[in-house]
């Protein structure tokens, strides 16, 4: 299946690096549903810039450490 967004992310790795944080806890701290966190992790949803910043703030890292955008169209 072709993923609807080219944006990739490291949320799963960051969650594990932060005490194996549960998706539900991250969702609570960002203020979204757990299903939205799952959709973002799986590349099925590209969050708004504001939500992206809120996620980065939870992990206390810059935005680039959470979300990546490939240079090529491939």
């Amino acid at each position, binding site marked *: *299946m072709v*993923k*609807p*967004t080219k944006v990739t992310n490291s949320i799963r790795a960051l969650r594990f690096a932060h005490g194996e944080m549960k998706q539900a806890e991250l969702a609570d701290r960002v203020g*979204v*549903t757990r*299903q939205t966190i799952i959709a973002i992790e*799986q590349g099925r*949803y590209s*969050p708004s810039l504001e939500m992206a910043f809120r996620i980065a703030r939870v992990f206390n890292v810059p935005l680039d450490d959470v979300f990546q955008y490939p240079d090529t169209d491939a």
Partner: protein
Amino acid sequence: MSSEEKRSWVYLVVGVGVAAVYLVTVLSKLPGADVTRIAYVRPMLVAIGAGIGLGIVASIAAAIASPRGEAGRTDERDRQIHRRGEYVGFYVMSVAATVPLALAMAEAAHFWIANALYLAFVLAMVASSTTKIVSYRRGF
């Protein structure tokens, strides 16, 4: 499954189910009958009322069955998907509504006009709910 996705499923299943029962009930009277004499008004009003009532009851039941803290919670993704679904539903309704309009201009029997309009509502609801469900499952 988020509460909004559950709600989309509820509306799709209830809407299609009620419409199917209505169509079978009314269409079974159609062969060889004079459409001006078919009593469709009461079944249609019951179908519309049942669709709304069952939709509300099933949504509440789905919310009660949801994990603690997840019932009724929505976010920007839910709102975007809702808008997308309503947008598609509006276009389907706009196109489908041309049929009862044409029937009215052709002075067709009220039976056909009312049923074409009811079908337009059902099609719009199916398109809207399906768009939302596909958006939830495949992403967008």
